[in-house]
């Protein structure tokens, strides 16, 4: 893979004029414009939150750098001072071929605002990568970029390439992995153009509606529910101006992508690029934080894994995915399970059990502590006998002895939990009081974007802890500091969805049941979206059996026509019998017919030819038929292997005489005799046919009666034979 990648990069850099004109640029949105990470994001921007002990933005920047991006504009809004301060002090400010420029704003409330501001600055000069600072990936951009550029050359309206990846088409998996809703996309399988995007499909309705022009305009459309949006976009300059033109665009997906797809006046198109083995995912909520942390520990994001990214601080990977810094003080009796990360300077006491967790730097963990599936950041003190399950514990938190964190607890910075206190499941605790309900459904994170309030707050943190302490002592036990945030009415049910804790079994069962019900509901409905995402149209609710029959009937008619055409061509162009046999066989396979049908169809076409060729009298018609049968008897015979097939031919002939070629009605016995003479039909078949007809209706027996003589003769001949045998 490495070699391949190398080759690819070399190829791109050989394209001199492309490279000379625009160094590849990227816009990194260091603000998610959501409130999903509250209360933590009230004090620190999301992009600086540690992900396996490294600030998230480092993963994004490291990837951009390795993907060949040369210039990154980091857009900071909430806590912009912190982001800028971090970037300036980090290694990113001094990279030789990689410049990181920050763009600060205090009043942007959405991605749309951010892009409008960047457009005003006029810093983007070509194609750019649009990404948010919480995306982890290791994909190679080369191919996607090349595709994007090639498309742009052909069609200037192809302004955006969206990176998608395969995921299991089950809402449960999507829910339990990244905590995202199911996503529906319609993609043209040939051009990879994105035609439809819906991330908020309403499950209760059980259907999604597609515009009918979408089906009409595109020869083929695949509706996917097995794709995951990686939130990595390759955009052309026009995207920025589009945001400016449509000043109401806020959300990248909900407004911009959907807006482009619906609005066909400008004719702008969005395409997709699918990645297969490489990794890409965005941290949208606490659940994806948990999942992506575990993916990183399992090294799916290689080379963006802690031991490679940290480099100098000497973190080593040991067996069973244990990452350990060099100077960890570990008690001899401490039990470290698999998939854990322990940062530098951390001390761990006796009989402490740790599994599936990340523990940051300079933490002090006492004895008999149990830590499972938790994320503990830096400088945390956990006293003896605490229990933590699936919790996130931010910097500077103190857990007094015997404190218990139930699944899904979030402890924000410097919270103190009192002795023996049990923090209930899914609660969020912060030193800051919960903002009043004002913006619960707004997507804001800029509460303290100005530096003034930020400092004010930190003053408060340092100075005012004493009054807080007495005030909140009751909320977090004796000696506890912090407020437990209230969960809004109705939101409680949703807490488990985006929490860091695994989905409780009862919820999973419920999800599963819901889904089954949905499916039942769907199969009864008109439009069925089956699990594989394929779209079927069922004509009516009458059950599908009739439908099947009808289908096969239709198939047979068209098959018959095909065979007839083939036969006529064979006659007119003097095709050899062998070839004709082959062709008919091919037709049989493609229409999925039995050889019984072939015999009938060939005989039908022969007789039809006989009728259609010029004739004046019945005897002439007979002669025509005889000629054709003699010439093509081999063809017919090759499809008549057993008695059933021969009977089929007789039945077919009978049908013809009644319906399409009544002229044959008179000639029925003669033709039958002819076929017998040519050894196409055997006496057994004819006799069987006669026997079967014996019990039929009078009207059905017309032809039996007409050929009575012949049959009689046959019977006698047979008896004679038998007698002779004796």
């Amino acid at each position: 893979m490495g070699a391949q990648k190398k080759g690819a990069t070399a190829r791109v850099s050989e394209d001199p004029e492309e490279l000379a004109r625009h160094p590849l640029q990227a816009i990194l949105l260091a603000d998610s414009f959501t409130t999903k990470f509250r209360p933590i994001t009230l004090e620190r921007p999301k992009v600086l939150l540690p992900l396996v002990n490294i600030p998230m933005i480092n993963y994004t920047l490291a990837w951009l750098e390795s993907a060949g991006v040369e210039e990154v504009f980091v857009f900071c809004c909430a806590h912009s001072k912190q982001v800028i301060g971090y970037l300036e002090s980090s290694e990113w400010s001094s990279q030789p071929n990689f410049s990181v420029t920050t763009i600060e704003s205090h009043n942007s409330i959405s991605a749309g605002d951010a892009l409008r501001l960047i457009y005003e600055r006029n810093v983007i000069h070509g194609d750019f990568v649009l990404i948010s600072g919480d995306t982890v990936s290791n994909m190679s951009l080369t191919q996607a970029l090349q595709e994007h550029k090639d498309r742009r050359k052909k069609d200037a309206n192809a302004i955006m390439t969206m990176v998608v990846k395969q995921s299991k088409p089950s809402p449960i998996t999507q829910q339990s992995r990244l905590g995202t809703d199911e996503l529906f996309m319609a993609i043209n399988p040939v051009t990879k153009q994105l035609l439809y995007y819906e991330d908020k499909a309403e499950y209760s309705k059980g259907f999604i509606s597609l515009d009918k022009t979408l089906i009409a305009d595109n020869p083929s459309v695949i509706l996917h529910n097995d794709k995951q949006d990686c939130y990595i976009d390759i955009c052309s300059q026009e995207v920025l101006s589009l945001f400016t033109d449509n000043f109401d665009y806020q959300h990248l997906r909900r407004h911009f992508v959907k807006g482009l797809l619906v609005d066909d006046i400008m004719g702008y198109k969005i395409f997709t690029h699918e990645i297969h083995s490489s990794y890409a995912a965005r941290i949208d909520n606490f659940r994806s934080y948990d999942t992506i942390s575990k993916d990183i520990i399992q090294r799916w994001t290689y080379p963006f894994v802690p031991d490679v990214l940290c480099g100098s601080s000497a973190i080593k990977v040991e067996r069973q995915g244990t990452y350990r810094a060099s100077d960890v003080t570990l008690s001899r009796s401490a039990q470290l399970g698999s998939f854990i990360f322990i940062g530098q300077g951390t001390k761990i006491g006796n009989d402490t059990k740790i599994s599936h967790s990340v523990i940051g730097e300079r933490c002090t963990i006492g004895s008999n502590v149990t830590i499972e599936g938790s994320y503990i950041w830096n400088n945390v003190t956990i006293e003896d006998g605490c229990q933590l399950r699936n919790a996130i514990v931010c910097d500077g938190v103190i857990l007094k002895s015997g404190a218990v964190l139930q699944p899904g607890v979030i402890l924000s910075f410097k919270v103190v939990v009192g002795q023996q206190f049990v923090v209930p499941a899914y609660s969020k605790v912060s030193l800051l009081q919960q903002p009043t309900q004002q913006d619960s459904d707004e997507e804001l994170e800029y509460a303290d974007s100005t530096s003034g309030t930020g400092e004010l707050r930190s003053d408060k943190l340092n100075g005012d802890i004493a009054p807080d302490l007495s005030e909140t002592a009751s909320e977090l036990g004796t000696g506890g500091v912090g407020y437990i945030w209230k969960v809004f009415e109705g939101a409680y049910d949703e807490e488990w969805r985006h929490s860091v804790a695994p989905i409780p079994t009862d919820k999973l069962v419920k999800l599963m049941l819901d889904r089954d019900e949905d499916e039942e509901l769907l199969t009864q409905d008109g439009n069925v979206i089956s699990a594989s995402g394929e779209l079927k149209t069922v004509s009516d609710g009458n059950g599908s059996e009739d439908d099947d029959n009808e289908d096969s009937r239709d198939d047979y008619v068209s098959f018959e026509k095909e065979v007839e055409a083939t036969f006529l061509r064979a006659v007119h162009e003097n095709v050899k019998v062998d070839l004709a046999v082959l062709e008919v066989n091919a037709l049989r396979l493609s229409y999925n017919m039995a050889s019984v049908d072939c015999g009938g169809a060939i005989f039908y076409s022969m007789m039809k030819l006989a009728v259609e060729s010029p004739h004046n009298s019945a005897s002439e018609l007979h002669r025509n038929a005889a000629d054709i049968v003699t010439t093509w008897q081999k063809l017919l015979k090759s499809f008549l292997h057993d008695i059933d097939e021969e009977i089929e031919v007789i039945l077919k002939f009978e049908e013809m005489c009644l319906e399409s070629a009544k002229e044959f009605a008179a000639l029925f016995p003669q033709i039958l005799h002819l076929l017998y003479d040519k050894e196409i039909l055997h006496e057994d078949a004819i006799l069987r046919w006669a026997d079967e007809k014996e019990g039929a209706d009078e009207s059905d027996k017309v032809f039996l009666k007409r050929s009575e003589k012949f049959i009689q003769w046959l019977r006698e001949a047979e008896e004679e034979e038998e007698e002779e045998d004796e």
Partner: protein
Amino acid sequence: MPDTQALVNDFLNKLKKRKIEGSQATAKQTAELLRSVISQTRMPYTNQAAALIHSVKAVGERLVAANPVELAVGNVVRRVLHIIREEDLSLTTAAMAGLNLSAESDDEDDTDRDNHPALSAAAIASASRSTLRPPSLQTLLEDVPDSAAVPHTSSSGGDSEGKSKSADKSSRSRKLKHDVIEAVNELIQDISTCRELIAEQAVEHIHQNEVILTLGSSRTVLEFLCAAKEKKRSFRVFVAEGAPRYQGHLLAKELVTRGLQTTLITDSAVFAMISRVNMVIVGAHAVMANGGVIAPVGLNMVALAAQKHAVPFVVLAGSHKLCPLYPHHPEVLLNELRSPSELLDFGEFSDCLDFGSGIGAPLLHVVNPTFDYVPPKLVSLFITDTGGHNPSYMYRLIADYYSADDLVLERRTASGN
């Protein structure tokens, strides 16, 4: 030195991102970087060697930390340190000889007796050298020309030395730096020619109508085989594909374009095929001081199969791959775990990595190590650019290339600070 600092940072970055593939390229670039570091180091008047060693160590430590898996970096750093020490030593002894000479010429003007003390100084020098490092075959052989060469330089130096002390100092300082850079150039030369030197020995090892087995891909092995082919040896090659990176496919393709009869097999078929093989020839990632080999994953299995059928197991390694550390040394990072996506398609298997339900831990764990450790007893022969060696001889060879003082790079600087 802002100039070198940028170079160092750039190289560090490349190492960190694993952008340099192959130990030869890494070794060469490391040596070139150290050369520029040396040339940029400002020399004090006293104890110049220590200054050089200090600056090389400072850079070397960071380089090693950037990619601890690539042992070649550390090897080259240590060799450069060794070069500095050696050059310093030879200059000191030469100076001592010169001082002796001038002192004696002050006493007596008899030029006939000039040669005698100079010779004795050379003898001191060689004696001090041999005390510094254990006598090896090579040093024993080197001794004769050394003692012949040293008096010449010392007597020529002696003329200028008599004139002024300060001029002598500056010329010595320039001379040390100059000599070191010269020697580093030689090292770079050695690194770039090691493949050819190894390949030259191919005919001695590959015989007519033999069957050679190799695993994965190594440039050294490729050139070795091609060299034998060019010398009109006809033989067949079995290439094990080297999962999961399948570099064997590339090697097979390359061999076929060079006109070699090649058979590609899966890694798991090695045991079945080994009985038909006359010799296993593989490349290495690093050779440890005990003769053990760090090699692409799967080679231990091949080595065991070869041992079972008494097939010679030959390892090709340039001298920059000789690592003075033992595999149990805590500083040695034996393995690198690469992305599981080389084995599995993440999209397809992402549903096995479902953390949100159940116990919150996946049942599937994919491990993708890059290297194997092949113990020395499984290796029949090492072929380096200096010739073929037995595994048990490795530590001797290493003693020639490295100073014992430099084995641990980090702890030294830590105690120095």
